[in-house]
């Protein structure tokens, strides 16, 4: 399959029939299955990465395995549905925001053309309202009486494997920018929804490596690239050389100082256990996009001992 060129894509965005260009798809969104093809999904987490994270946060990342979204069989645990629903219930009890976001949407459509994923694709499921509706439909079925009794009539649907695949596709098409929330009359925040849903998907081992590996790296080495201390030091030295070459000034990096607090700004990921204090070479790399909002442990701060912290004294 030939990859489309930028010009073609540009013309397509403006001319092809899509919700952005005013065409209403014939099939309802519940009857439109998602198709995975090369280029439209991210690669799943590598088994060794998932294994590492499972050691750090036991039970949060599912079974490490080799799988592909293009496969029919995603090698999920047999009781995946139970795990997902239990994960959902737990988060509904933990986050008032999620409960209110599930109940309050009036589908006014104010958020519809605010999402850059929608603006760029015209795909109806990229409207924030519909992205949340992918979950809300299941929420209605499993957590509300009306949905249990009246089903599809009130926009409820069962959690099937196809729904799960759809979730994987669309909950990852969100950069957590929260623009939709600005325009929503109730402040419904798709970022919170997708972050929690990625977390729920993690429970059954559905994940993407593009997020998990940097997250694992940040946890282990303090930087998302996974640079080990000696390499990190080398990198800083190159930069110092460059600075000297250009400006004539030799900068003295704090790497020669001893102890954990020699760089000023510690990374504060939202959930992964952070290094107790910043490794000397760490440059903060936020892992908020790692799809993790469940409260992580507070980061114990080590008091800087005298002389250990030239940059923060």
């Amino acid at each position, binding site marked *: 399959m030939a990859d489309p060129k930028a010009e073609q894509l540009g013309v397509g965005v403006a001319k092809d029939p899509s*919700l952005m260009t005013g065409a209403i798809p014939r099939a309802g969104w519940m009857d439109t299955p998602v198709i995975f093809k090369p280029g439209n999904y991210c690669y799943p987490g590598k088994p060794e990465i998932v294994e590492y994270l499972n050691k750090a946060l036991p039970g949060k990342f599912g079974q490490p395995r080799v799988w592909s979204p293009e496969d029919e069989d995603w090698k999920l645990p047999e009781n995946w549905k139970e795990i997902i629903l239990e994960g959902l219930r737990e988060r509904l009890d933990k986050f008032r925001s999620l409960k209110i976001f599930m*109940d309050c949407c009036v589908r006014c*459509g104010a958020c519809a053309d605010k999402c850059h994923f929608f*603006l760029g694709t015209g795909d*109806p499921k990229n*409207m924030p309202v519909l992205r949340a509706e992918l979950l809300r439909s299941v929420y209605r079925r499993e957590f509300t009486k009306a949905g249990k009794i009246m089903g599809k009539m009130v926009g409820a649907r069962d959690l099937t494997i196809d729904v799960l695949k759809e979730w994987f596709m669309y909950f990852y098409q969100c950069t957590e920018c929260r623009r939709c929330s600005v325009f929503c009359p109730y402040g419904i925040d798709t970022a919170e929804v997708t972050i929690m849903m990625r977390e729920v998907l993690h429970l059954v081992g559905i994940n993407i490596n593009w997020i998990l590996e940097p997250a694992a790296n940040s946890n282990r080495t303090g930087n998302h690239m996974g640079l080990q201390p000696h390499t990190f030091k080398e990198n800083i030295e190159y930069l110092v050389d460059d600075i000297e070459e250009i400006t004539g000034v030799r900068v003295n990096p704090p790497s020669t100082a001893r102890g954990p607090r020699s760089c000023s700004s510690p990374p504060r990921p939202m959930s992964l256990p952070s*290094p107790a204090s910043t490794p000397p070479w760490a440059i903060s790399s936020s892992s908020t996009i790692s799809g993790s909002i469940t*409260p992580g442990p507070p980061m114990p701060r080590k008091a800087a001992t005298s002389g250990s912290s030239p940059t923060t004294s």
Partner: protein
Amino acid sequence: MKVLQSVLLVLALVVVGYVVSAIPGGQTLIGKVLPYLAFGVFILFFIVKVIGWSKSPVPFRIPTTAGQENSLPWIKQARFDNPSTTGGVIVRMLLEVTMFRSLFRNTKAEVYDGPYLAYGSSKYLWLFALIFHYSLLVVVLRHLRLFLNPVPDFIRTLGAADGFLQILSPGLQISGLTLLLGVTLLLLRRLIRPQVRYISLVNDYFPLLLIMAIATSGILMRYVVRTDIINVKQLIVGLTTFHPVIPGQIGSIFFVHLFLVCCLMVYFPFSKLMHMGGVFLSPTRNMANTNRMVHHDNPWNDPALKPHSYDSYEDEFRELMKEAEIPVEKE
């Protein structure tokens, strides 16, 4: 299709109301029993829902930042779009609840050849929503004259203001018409805008159509198929004083109207209409953005989760660090 289903549903309710009011004992059911039931369900489940929401904590202070946050003194803060004080939050909520601030912000995006993307102002939804909600508020308040005896002054004043045009007999009350107008505009918008139409469910059309039917039956009752207002008032005051009566002859249209209102009350707490309560409780709007001023500890943190410590970092890389002449804590 979904519109049609909703239309049929509402028509069915109208027919049910009409038929029940015509059979013996039916008027007692709709006039004496159903209002209590419906009101009870409405209040009870409204409270249940709100308590259900309040039971879940708000672990993170992540309000929507719709403008410049509080920063250095020479950077102008958007005090109400990104409030950092309780006062600011109160103003933000007031603007949101009474003026629909967020909808006023609405834009529309369109793609043109090139391709380029153009944004324009789009205040229709804001306008329609304001017309609808304020009309509904006035209509509901105006109805209090039927519940209270003597009628409080502010309701008399409201009624007088509402009927200031002084045309028709009985005098035309503008809010009734604007309510019908608002609900029609919202419905048309839902049908015409492709994006909104695509996402609309029966849950969206049904309440609009139900309110439309309620407004229509009310207007018909007042101007066309007259009912005896004295009898209506006696019935309703009877309800509020817990001595329900069915006084003499009241037209079926009144019972249809009352029946539809009861349906709306029962439907309310189980539906998206709960946005009435949710708008006040939405965590992204009712918190001050103080993240850069105050350290917020999350009391729901899992104490079992241990962080990856510096010591284990050093343990893993000690030899490499020594080789690279990086100072270590333990030799």
